[in-house]
């Protein structure tokens, strides 16, 4: 038994206006050499605070109030600051969530990777550079010899995250702390990063603490899981045992919230036959327009979409696929270069100036981030009152009653009416955000990643609320998300976007069995499942793509060509793909037909929808 890390009765307090508040309340755990321990919980559960305490560090306004944090032979809480600095980045290192914010854009990657080790005097520059290249190779970075010569903006987000892991590992630390290292990444990128982390951790026998809110990710990485809530340990145990038989109610709710589509299903009976919104041949983008009126950077290409009354359509795709731009066009924030919008029979102008007050009222947008979507200087009732006054001329008691009604509708306690947004929790803010959209009695709500910034449990509640509201009010949703299981929980039809093109459109059911468009296939299979060993077993291949010669100069070639595992030489790189319907009823944009795709995709694991462990 060699307990490398021992945390005993750790307590951290924060200074507030009302005196000291205990945010970590007596947490104890231990970790052996070579093990990976996961700290899991919602925001505010104290998981990052505990992780930082392992560095002997407390954030501004916080104080390590008591307990023992033993890392190897070092007692982190009793060491003076100058000795702690000798340990940090040397014996204990930290990988932060946002790699993009953690790198200095003005310095080459290799210099930043070895900087810490140089400061600690762990070797000569050339030795460390050699070691960094080895680490790059282990982390499956492309061109490990030369990638270090690049600057942070010249590599992708997933690669940057792996470079940061190299920076943390270069000093051969006793302990690596990974704080939500893949949360900001797309699922398709996350899977590569997780694989790289896992291999490095295993090969080098590193001991790691992995902080995350995502149980499915943790299931792939960790040997032990500690479930936290409100600064206390709710449950801890080995990963397998905890996933199979969670003892605590809270752990069970976390497990359930991880896959909302297992519990929730869309209210498809609300869909009426009349068309609400039609999008035809939509092309839009940003930047200066050329002579033909086409913008320099095209984000959307030739999009057709129809939303019926009462229908919920989900749009999925990775970042940069143009899904948010689609919502912005419908909302009138971006004037399309080509194509037409028709709303309830009448043409819908591309810019705001050309829309009627009634059209403004009937289309409402809910943004992802409730922190920036609510004016911090207005209180809840002022935020809700504005659309009521504007569209319905409500005053006095009628106004107050309607505000209360709306707050009840989104299940927000009435006492919160006088609070400002910063005095509300993340979930409450998102409810205010929704209530404001509902205040206009809209026909169509554009939801842009409304659950992405929320904790899984809170996000699942918001999803449930959205479903209920649809049942009650018959509104339509254009629901944008990067997470296929959220979309499945709410939407009748799903649209998959890739770099501005609609590559697949089909019913919800069509998305639970093969065949798919090759990109959908990648997307669906990249979502981590809640069982151990998924990462090793999942069929998503990385790297081995069929060879293909340089594409011809035809403008409308398939945009997925460079990443497609089923591309065909002489076809995909020469001619533009057409739309075709495959088994299951989806329409895809691909050269391959349903049979061919089925054949190639059927040898993979079937998609497990809502099946755990």
């Amino acid at each position, binding site marked *: 038994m060699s307990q490398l890390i021992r945390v005993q009765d750790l307590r951290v307090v924060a200074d507030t206006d009302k005196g000291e508040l205990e945010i970590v309340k007596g947490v104890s755990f231990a970790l052996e050499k070579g093990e990976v321990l996961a700290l899991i919980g919602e925001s505010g559960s104290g998981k990052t605070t505990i992780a930082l305490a392992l560095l002997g560090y407390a954030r*501004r*306004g916080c104080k390590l109030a008591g307990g023992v944090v033993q890392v190897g032979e070092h007692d982190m809480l009793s060491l003076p600051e100058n000795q702690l600095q000798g340990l940090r980045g040397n014996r204990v290192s930290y990988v932060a969530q946002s790699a993009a914010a953690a790198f200095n854009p003005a310095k080459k990657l290799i210099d930043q990777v070895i900087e810490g080790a140089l400061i600690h005097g762990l070797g000569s520059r050339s030795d460390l550079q050699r070691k960094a290249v080895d680490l790059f190779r282990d982390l499956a970075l492309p061109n490990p010899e030369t990638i270090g010569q690049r600057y942070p903006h010249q590599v992708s987000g997933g690669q940057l995250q792996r470079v940061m892991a190299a920076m943390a590992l270069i000093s051969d630390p006793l302990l690596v702390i990974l704080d939500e290292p893949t949360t900001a990444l797309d699922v398709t990128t996350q899977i590569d990063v997780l694989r790289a982390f896992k291999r490095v951790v295993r090969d080098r026998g590193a001991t790691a603490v992995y902080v995350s809110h995502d149980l499915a990710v943790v299931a792939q990485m960790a040997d032990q899981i500690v479930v936290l809530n409100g600064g206390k340990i709710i449950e801890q145990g080995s990963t397998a045992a905890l996933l199979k038989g969670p003892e605590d109610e809270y752990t069970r709710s976390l497990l359930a919230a991880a896959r909302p589509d297992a519990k929730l299903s869309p209210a498809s009976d609300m869909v009426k036959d009349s068309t609400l919104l039609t999008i035809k041949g939509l092309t839009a983008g940003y930047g200066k327009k050329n002579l033909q009126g086409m913008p320099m950077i095209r984000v959307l290409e030739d999009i057709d979409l129809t939303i019926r009354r009462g229908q919920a359509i989900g749009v999925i795709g990775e970042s940069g696929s143009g899904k948010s731009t689609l919502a912005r066009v419908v909302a009138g*924030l971006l004037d399309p270069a080509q194509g037409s919008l028709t709303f309830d029979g009448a043409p819908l102008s591309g810019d705001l100036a050309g829309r009627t007050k009634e059209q403004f009222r009937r289309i409402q947008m809910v943004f992802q981030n409730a922190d920036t979507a609510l004016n911090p200087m207005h209180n809840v009732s002022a935020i809700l009152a504005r659309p009521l006054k504007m569209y319905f001329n409500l005053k006095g008691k009628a106004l107050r009653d309607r505000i209360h009604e709306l707050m009840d509708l989104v299940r927000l306690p009435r006492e919160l009416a006088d609070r*400002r947004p910063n005095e509300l929790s993340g979930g409450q803010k998102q409810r205010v955000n929704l209530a404001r959209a509902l205040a206009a009695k809209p026909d169509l709500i554009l939801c842009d990643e409304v659950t992405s910034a929320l904790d899984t449990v809170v996000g699942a509640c918001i999803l449930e609320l959205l479903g209920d509201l649809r049942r009650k009010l018959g509104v339509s949703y254009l629901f944008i998300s990067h997470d296929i299981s959220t979309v499945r929980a709410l939407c009748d039809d799903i649209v998959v976007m890739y770099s501005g093109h609609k590559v697949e459109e089909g019913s919800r059911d069509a998305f639970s069995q093969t065949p798919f468009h090759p990109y959908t296939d990648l997307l669906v299979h990249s979502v981590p499942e809640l069982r151990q060993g998924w990462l090793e077993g999942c069929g998503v291949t990385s790297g081995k793509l069929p060879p293909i010669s340089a594409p011809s100069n035809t403008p409308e070639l398939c945009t997925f060509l460079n990443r497609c595992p089923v591309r065909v030489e002489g076809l995909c790189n020469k001619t533009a793909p057409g739309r075709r319907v495959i088994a299951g009823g989806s329409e895809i944009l691909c050269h391959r037909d349903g049979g061919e795709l089925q054949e190639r995709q059927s040898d993979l694991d079937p998609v497990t929808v809502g099946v755990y462990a």
Partner: protein
Amino acid sequence: MNPIIETSTPAVQVRAPRKIAWLGLVGASVCFFWLMIALFGPWLAPHPVGEVVSDNVFENISAAFPFGTDYLGRDMLSRVLIGARFTVGLALISAVLASGIGTMCALLSVVAPKWLDEIISRLMDAFISIPSKMLALIMVSAFGSSEVLLVCTAVLSYTPGAFRIARSMAVNIEALEYVQVARTRGEDRLYIACREILPNMLNPVLTDLGLRFGFIVLLLSGMSFLGLGVQPPDADLGSLVRENIGGLNQGAPAIVIPALAIGSLTIGVNLFIDRLSSRRSRRSGGH
């Protein structure tokens, strides 16, 4: 920043909210004090502003003349009490006008069509390229010195800076989602500018106002020091320093007192404004 935490603040943090509040209180009382002097100073003054009351010039502090006498043997206390009105009044009017006009133009240029934004911005750029002292000198030599002209000069010199700062903040706020929501709701430009954007940029605008007040006090004092500001027998604090420069080698209170007055005024205003903005931002959840 290096993600591996190298240099970090100690685990035990010392926060100093009380100290800040105390400083703010000092600032507020200094501001209040000078405002009162500006309002009631002339009535408190024991002697008329131009009256020669002593045979001795640069006299030291005494019971009869608490601040001594100036280079002509006039009572310094009276001169300061009356002079403060010019410095505080002119600077306050100019600063409020400069910040107000700058902020209004900034809001206008953010919500207005692009061509109007271009016109306003380029015009302000043109103004910002003229050194303020030079502009002031030209104005005075062209139109002669008067209080209205001094205010105009100060406003003209300091509006473009206020505009630049306010515009850069307004542009950032305009891109935020709550403004986008307001736009998709069909709100008019006036509402977006005044209700959505303005309240969220008021803190830095107020801080900027404080800074600008300080600059304008210094500009006006500088002008007076050159003899181009407020004309005798009236004198603002700057002219008082200039007039009595002859007393510098004797360390006469006649030069120390007005200099101290300028210093305490600008520092007090800045302390007070800092406190105002930190209180406002605490309510809205900022830092």
